[in-house]
């Protein structure tokens, strides 16, 4: 989608709401280390992979934040930040900014506030969030399914057809798993669930994907209860 900054698609959103979100980004403890101003030199854009294939610019992000341009901030928050590759090539900024870092903070705020654009950006991503939060490893072997990666060719089917056997044909003892990247001990998983609980991550999930929240809460509450923890995610 073309990023049209002249046309304010969000004119009906109250300025106070945009400002509230802007301030939320600024209040993150990392913000001061990610933005020192902006020379508007464009060095970040030259290094940026997303700028080559999308109507996207890390300079616009840094510049908008440095100018405290709340209206443009809100457009970028909705229409731009999810194009970023989070590679941090833009960290070569001569002003010592991290436009990619600012984007991380903006994404967090978008998720925490359940913006429709964040929900849309994360459509189809729920199964990944489920996997990492519930098992402690991401992209398990059994996720290599031909329908999920049609553009990777027939070798994905070959792997999924042989998955059980090929996992057993791995010498490291921890890698015989198919549902997780490696074998994670029970005690470790419980500790991970407690971390999600103590740091409020489940509140963020609830804002962007209610269905995913409910499934995750069920799985984790049950496991925690078995271990004697009385934890409710609500």
């Amino acid at each position, binding site marked *: 989608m073309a990023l049209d900054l002249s046309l304010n698609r969000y004119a009906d959103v109250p300025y106070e709401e945009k400002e509230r979100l802007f301030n939320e980004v600024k209040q993150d*403890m990392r913000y001061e280390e990610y933005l020192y101003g902006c020379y508007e030199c464009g060095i970040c854009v030259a290094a940026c992979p997303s700028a080559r294939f999308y109507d996207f610019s890390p300079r616009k992000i840094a510049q908008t934040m440095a100018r405290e341009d709340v209206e443009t901030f809100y457009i970028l928050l909705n229409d731009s930040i999810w194009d970023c590759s*989070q590679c941090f*090539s833009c960290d070569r900024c001569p002003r010592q900014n991290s436009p990619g870092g600012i984007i991380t903070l903006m994404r967090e705020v978008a998720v925490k506030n359940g913006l429709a654009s964040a929900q849309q950006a994360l459509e189809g991503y729920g199964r990944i*969030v489920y996997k990492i939060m519930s098992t402690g490893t*991401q992209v398990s072997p059994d996720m290599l399914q031909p329908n999920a990666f049609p553009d990777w060719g027939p070798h994905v089917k070959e792997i999924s057809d042989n998955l059980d*056997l090929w996992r057993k044909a791995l010498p490291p003892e921890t890698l015989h798993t198919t549902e997780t990247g490696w074998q994670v001990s029970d005690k470790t998983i419980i500790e991970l669930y407690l971390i999600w609980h103590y*740091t409020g991550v489940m509140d963020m999930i609830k804002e962007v994907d209610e269905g995913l929240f409910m499934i995750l809460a069920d799985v984790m509450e049950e496991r925690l209860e078995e271990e004697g923890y009385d934890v409710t995610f609500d």
Partner: protein
Amino acid sequence: MIPVETLVKPAKEREFKVNPAEAPTEDYHDIIFQLEKEGEWEVLRVPEPYIEVETKFGRKKKIPIEKTWHHKSCGQCGHIPGYSTSIFWINRKLGLDYIDPTDQTSCTAWNYYASATSNVAAQAAVAMRNFAAAAETGYFPLIHCGTSFGHYKEVRQELIHSAELRRQVRDILAKLGKKLVMPEEIVHYSEWVHAMRHRIAEMQVRDMSMIAATVHPACHYHKLVREDAIYDPEIYGAQRTAIITATLKAIGVEVRDYSTWYDCCGFGFRHILVSRDFSRSFATQRKIEVMKEEADPDVVVTHDTGCVTTLDQSQFAAKAHGRNVGVPVMSDSQMAALAMGAHPYKVLQLHWHNTDNKPFLEKIGIDVEKAWQEFEEEVEKIKRGEKQYLTWEDVDA
């Protein structure tokens, strides 16, 4: 197009001296030990003996030789398991003591950079839980994933600068019965391979001198917290990281340059999973095709999960469109293991990779059909129930 030699020449001819005292960034070593004195955390020392290497601004970094606690990578273990298997295999071949723990979670940073469904405290607590688990074993964390490595360095920065975050994470860990422990160094496995490269070369049994490679340094290795990456005046005049290149040179591989070496691979974290049109276009048009045109390598060597995945898997669709692609992609650990005689399927597990690697394997004298048959025989034994798993003893039989 400007010839690559013109671009790199000045760096080779002029000598740039680095002076750690004039480094533009703070030295994390001083701060983490100061915080230990103040009772904020314990510092987990790099076990002796270690090897000292130089980082971007001339500071020293200690790389442990053994007693390493292997912090595995989701994408490596899940989709390209020969990557991690090769790291373990090299350790075993060198007779080094290590732990492959089950008390380890992902750093969860792939998900964080993709979806932002986490926060600074959760990310720091996950990191410090893993470090505490390593410390409990008396072994030292060796981080397999480039993103875990970069992210953990970010977490270290955040913890160094925020007493409030330290307090928050310390409290969470206390509830888990764990202490706040900061490793003296955050070490990527490729730094270990780099530090061990001469010992690897001493045990080399396969000649690799007919091989030309291009190198892709991972963004999260040398761009995130940039001062903590290996640089060496002997390699590119220390104008870019020495990682991978020094290892390949040590095993006799010719490293060829190309103009988009600094570019990302196109992984994108969320893109590789839900917007792959971007990843495919970037990986092939900005990396593989440029490498082919300017350097014509036999293999692309990189040192991170996402980079191997994107650069390798993206070539299938591009090939179907008749693009100038078709170079196998491997990790430095797989290349080093190959040089030391590792089996291409039992150890490197190349059947999990996508782009045709047979011409490359044949070039270094491997009988591909025979090697595949040897692997298939082992698989048959597992199928028939004659053995449960392929073991470490089997792979060197």
